[in-house]
């Protein structure tokens, strides 16, 4: 990144000529480099990021042959220490990062060459960790934007989201940036659900919310999974997350360290000692 003179930050702080607000950090896959090809589904995995290797710009690789996957209607959780590449792995699966090696397959189709918006159309949805709502738009507009690619009637889906998160219905005319932390997370998840996705990817959905709100959010996530939506989640609260996970991935320095069912990982003394605080 530092190699690129275009990204030199010098002189970039004068707000009368430059506007740093809401600027994107993604390096999205730009166009279909390879046609989506059907391949046999690996062990029934619905979405799999297979042997992913890559990093940002010209910088060093963050992911090294990292594989994460989720089965239909199940919950997969990625845990690991800070800087393990959990969020990067999620972004890579969503095409917001150019991979040097590896492939992403959805329902057996290779989607590595698809742009993020094409992946949305394929039934994927992603809730990033930070700035995951349109803060200057109303709650309702946020949900509408979630359903941007849909041409059919979105009112029914919107009702379902309001059923899942009743508080949003009361606040739907309010500017989303004015809501509390927990409510903002609900807007974020609601926005992602508006496409009626088959896979929902959540990057630390409970970051910065109170324990009560956290439990509530986990309940809602389980509820969503029960409707048949696969969930791939990065979580800081590893113990609670593995508790509800069908599959758990422990990443360390961009590599898979442990992969097993959530309960097995919770029972594994090594994992407990190193990653769950004993």
């Amino acid at each position, binding site marked *: 990144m530092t190699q690129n003179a*275009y990204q030199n930050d010098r002189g970039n702080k004068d707000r009368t000529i*430059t506007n740093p607000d809401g*600027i994107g950090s993604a390096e999205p896959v730009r166009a279909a480099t390879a046609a989506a090809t059907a391949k046999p589904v690996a062990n029934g995995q619905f979405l799999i990021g297979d042997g992913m290797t890559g990093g940002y710009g010209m910088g060093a690789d963050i992911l090294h042959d990292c594989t994460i996957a989720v089965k239909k209607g199940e919950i997969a959780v990625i845990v690991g220490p800070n800087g393990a590449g959990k969020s990067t792995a999620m972004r890579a699966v969503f095409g917001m990062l150019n991979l040097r090696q590896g492939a992403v397959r959805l329902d057996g189709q290779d989607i590595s060459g698809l742009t*993020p*918006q094409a992946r949305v159309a394929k039934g994927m949805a992603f809730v990033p960790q930070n700035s995951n709502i349109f803060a200057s738009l109303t709650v309702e507009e946020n949900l509408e934007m979630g359903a*941007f690619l849909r041409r059919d009637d979105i009112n029914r889906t919107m009702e379902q989201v309001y059923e899942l998160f009743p508080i949003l219905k009361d606040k739907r005319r309010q500017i989303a940036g004015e809501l509390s932390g927990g409510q903002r997370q609900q807007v974020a998840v609601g926005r992602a659900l508006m496409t009626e996705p088959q896979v929902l990817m959540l990057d630390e959905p409970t970051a910065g919310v109170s324990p009560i709100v956290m439990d509530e959010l986990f309940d809602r996530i389980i509820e969503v999974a029960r409707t048949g939506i696969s969930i791939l989640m990065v979580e800081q609260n590893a113990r609670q997350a593995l508790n509800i996970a069908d599959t758990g991935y422990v990443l360390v320095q961009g590599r898979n360290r442990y992969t097993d069912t959530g309960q097995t990982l919770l029972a594994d003394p090594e994992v407990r000692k190193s990653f769950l605080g004993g």
Partner: protein
Amino acid sequence: MDVLNALVAFANFVLVPATAYGAQLALGALGVTLIYGILRFSNFAHGDTMAFGAMVTILVTWSIPLVFAWLQFNFPTLLFPIADWVLSPFGVAGGPLPTALLALPVGILVTALLLLGTDRVIYGFYRQQRAKPVVLVIVSMGVMFMMNGLVRFVIGPDDQRFADGARFIVSAREFKAMTGLREGLAFKTSQGITIVTAVIVVAALFWFLNRTRTGKSMRAYSDNEDLALLSGINPERVVAITWIIVAALATVAGVLYGLDKSFKPFTYFQLLLPIFASAIVGGLGSPVGAIVGGFVIAFSEVTVTYAWKKVLGYLMPEALEPSGLVQLLSTDYKFAVSFVILVIVLLFRPTGIFAGKTG
């Protein structure tokens, strides 16, 4: 003491001209603020984009009589009556409206193509490099010089008058005859058209941004680029639509300014300062701010450079009547007004009146 005559003189020399000028600045500032909000840099090429749009419109305006004659010659029976009917309200066929309004859509179209081409060839490259906004600012300066040269190359650096049709809606003499006052109030056609067009364009823009799906997606993109991507909003499409809207705003602003004053490429380059001042005073990135800012700058400029002798003469007792012109600043220095306002705003309220999008 003659309050009525003072009011009329004030309206004639300050209120009406400043309102028209404010509307032109507001349209220009809206374009700047849209680019700032969505493409995230200050577009220095905006003044010359206005000049380009006005130039194309002028060229089309000049060629309309030729097209008209050609139609008359080749299709005397079928097409000519239609063309005749379309042209009848415009100056070229003796109607009251300036012919340039008819040429405006073509001007917008050509300008939109130019901006989309510029984006494709120049800005697109820097977006792909994920260049910082400040790099794009400098790039836009290069584009400014290119457009500047292009306009002068095609139409020349001189003054061009292209206003036709009726010159006044109400002329000073008519007004005096109507009211019996000593002061006249002239209301030029170009001023009337400027105000009406500006209201229509602004209303359409706000409706578009707040009510349509595409407009909301533009606001969403401006708010949070990454999340827009995750929602399936195609950034390249948002950028393209922004350029098209900016082309329309710039061309309309340029043509209205040209109709009201006259067209001279260098004047449009100079307009950049009051336009930027308007956008910054109102709060960059805020469309409402751009409009308010436009009027703030226009009214300050006109009131400061107007010679108040006449108005004060009506208001003050004879003994106190001013002997000088009571002009605070010569019109030659009118750009200093925008500059001073800009400096004051940046010193005391850098986010502008409407605080831009940072709130």
